[in-house]
């Protein structure tokens, strides 16, 4: 286990051969595993189920399962009945009531996950790595899954079960390894572990980075939501406020709905219920342009797909969210764009030979600065940042934090979604903790510790 960004996913990728390690070795049954690759790992009996199911959307469940494990002759007749039977058996073994003939794209996310689990089971995996498998399962389904895991265990198979749901771990795990910042902190038998120690292991670290959060004058309420819900992405009854000059940190485990909240606020997935109030006035945000007009800005989590246009130059990325504002006449002004580019490259400290370089040539941290810069250009009054320093090096990280503080001092209200506890604790004036699509608790800076935050984030909904 470990908090977001501790290195769990990377570890899985190394095990399954998708990523080559720089150092160290993998040993399987006493034999070293050399030159790992997806095919090799599969042959060795290592299977991984990720959080994002990778099924063929147009093919049936039975076929998805079959393609994962069949190696039939070129023109040998496919036995669909056999496929269906096998799928049925596998699905039953994990208690999934899914029709083998259903098209994969018609299934819900949790259902797709179950199919993937069934597929991995079908591939006779000896070593099954499950990455947050129960994120979207009901209790009943979780129980069924645990039955299967127990069965596998009794068959001498090994299961690496990655989760942040402590209760589940207590129920199913024999041993627990805690990862933090990419390294193993400790491994202990589950019997010896208790909640508090585990949380401390996950969180406890020297907060060596200095987050220069100086208190900013906190003004009136800039953004408020009342009972905000969106049927399409699962958020419901979200109530919070954020004031000018304030940084509201949003914490929560993966799947708790943080990005979904941001997307609804920004009009990417408009709200279906509840209210949004900007500076006290109720507003309707049905598309990003509405949000921008109201002074909102959103730096998204997926930097490469949503945050920047990789094949655009830096300067073009910077002006993209406010074309009307920058080029009032409607015509591009290359000189103005160039000077804006230089200005922001300097201001943000983007390491690049010129503002005409393509964003794809920049490092992750610098790309993030460009993504941020684009929104700063719109002179927002409410800035939503989704994982602003994810995949960013230390130097860039503190620069971004310094920037955030400056913005807060200018009176901008900032909502910061982050999976990094130190960042949350260091930067936020208040912290909203999300779980299951809503905010379950709000803590003031003074009362917040890593344990308290994690504690709220990790409690199961009963």
């Amino acid at each position, binding site marked *: 286990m470990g908090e977001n960004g501790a290195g769990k996913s990377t570890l899985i990728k190394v095990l399954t051969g998708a990523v080559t390690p720089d150092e160290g070795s993998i040993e399987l049954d006493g034999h070293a595993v050399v030159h790992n690759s*997806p*095919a090799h790992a599969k042959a060795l009996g290592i299977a991984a189920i990720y959080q994002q199911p*990778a*099924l*063929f*959307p*147009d*093919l049936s469940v039975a*076929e998805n399962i079959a*393609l*994962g494990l*069949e*190696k*039939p*002759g*070129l*023109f*040998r*007749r*496919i036995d*669909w009945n056999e496929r269906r039977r096998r799928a049925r058996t596998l699905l039953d073994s994990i208690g999934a009531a899914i029709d083998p003939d259903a*098209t994969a*794209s*018609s299934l819900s996310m949790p259902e797709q996950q179950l199919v993937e689990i069934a597929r991995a089971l079908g591939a006779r995996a000896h070593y099954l790595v499950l990455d947050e498998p129960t994120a979207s399962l009901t209790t009943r389904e979780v129980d069924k899954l645990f039955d299967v895991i127990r069965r596998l265990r009794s068959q001498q198979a090994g299961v690496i079960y990655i989760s942040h749901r402590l209760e589940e771990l207590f129920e199913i795990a024999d041993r627990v390894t805690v990862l933090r910042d990419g390294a193993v902190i400790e491994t202990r038998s589950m019997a010896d572990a208790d909640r508090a120690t585990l949380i401390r292991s996950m969180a406890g670290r020297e907060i060596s980075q200095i987050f220069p959060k100086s208190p900013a004058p906190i003004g009136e309420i800039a953004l408020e939501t009342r009972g905000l819900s969106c049927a399409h992405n699962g958020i419901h009854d979200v109530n919070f406020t954020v004031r000018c000059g304030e940084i509201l940190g949003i914490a929560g485990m993966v799947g708790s709905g943080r990005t979904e909240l941001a997307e609804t606020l920004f009009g990417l997935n408009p709200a279906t219920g509840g209210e949004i109030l900007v500076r006290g006035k109720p507003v309707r945000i049905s598309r990003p342009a509405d949000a921008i007009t109201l002074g909102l800005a959103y730096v998204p989590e997926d930097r490469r797909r949503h945050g920047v246009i990789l094949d655009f130059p830096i300067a073009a990325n910077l002006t993209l969210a406010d074309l009307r504002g920058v080029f009032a006449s409607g015509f591009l002004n290359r000189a103005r764009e160039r000077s804006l580019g230089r200005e922001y490259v300097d201001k943000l400290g983007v390491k690049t030979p010129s503002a005409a370089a393509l964003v794809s040539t920049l490092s992750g941290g610098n790309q993030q600065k460009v993504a941020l810069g684009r929104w700063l250009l719109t002179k927002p009054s409410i800035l939503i940042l989704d994982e602003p320093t994810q995949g960013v090096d230390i130097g860039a990280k503190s620069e971004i934090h310094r920037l955030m503080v400056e913005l807060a001092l200018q009176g901008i209200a900032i909502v910061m979604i982050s999976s990094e506890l130190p960042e949350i604790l260091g930067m936020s004036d208040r912290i909203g903790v999300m779980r299951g699509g809503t905010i379950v608790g709000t803590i003031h800076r003074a009362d917040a510790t890593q344990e308290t935050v994690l504690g709220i984030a990790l409690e199961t909904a009963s």
Partner: protein
Amino acid sequence: MRREWSLAAAYAALLIAMAFIAPGFFAAENIRDMVLANTPVLLIAIGMTLVILTGEIDISVGSQFAIASIAAALFAKSGLPMLAVAAGAIALGWLMGALNGAFVAFLRIPSIVVTLATMAILRDSLRWSRGGAWVQNLPHSFQWFGFSQAGGQAVIVVIGAAVLALFVYLLRWTAPGRAIFATGSDAEAARLAGISVQSVRFHVFAALGALTGFAALLNSVRFEDIQANGGMGLELKVISAVVIGGASVNGGRGTLFGTLLGVALLAAIGPALTFVGVNAYWEKAVQGAIILAAVGFDALGATRGTHARATAH
């Protein structure tokens, strides 16, 4: 299967309307003639379905058809037995398709661009070499394969049915067939599952070419001579049939049953309009409207799959 059923319903409606307005439409000869004229179209549509299932397209089939038709006639004239003529036509078609396939699969040039170019190159090469001359004075063993008219017609229909059955089998019951669906559905996942995506792409174009060559032969044996510029507008007809039949242009979805219905629907429109007495020059408008209706109808009840994967396309 939604599309197939709504399409079948539309087709049934058309037939019912014809039963009232022009019952002569259902005369045995008319049905037989429609089937014969469109069996070649069906063969090509089968191949096109394979290509579209992988998410590609081929607009050069009309030119391939023309070349294969002339080639078949020339083979026959040179004295080869019909079996060799057939093999030759199919092989030639395969080669032309393989050319497309090579550019698409190995050079990764978008299929619309490749087949745009080969369409022009093939058609104009044929024009240049033939100068508009038909191939006449074919040996007697050519028309109807040397059988009687009724015999030859039966052979054509049987071959058509056999090819359809073969490809239904291939698509559903063999690994290469499933690989086509997988490639079209998600090429990356297919690669990870061990499918050679390049190979799939190459072979579907080659298969389409072979089927086109075969179709050209089946069409040519209905006549005593072969004209110089066959297959005009064929690609449009075939693609329309496949798309109306429910195949998704993004790949991964489609059935041969739907393609069959699409071919049947488009085949019926021309004669139906004649029977009803509508002037010939409204035909294109009707065809265009039907395509729009067919895809629009589907989109109104947009499935999750379409929406989730649609970008600007």
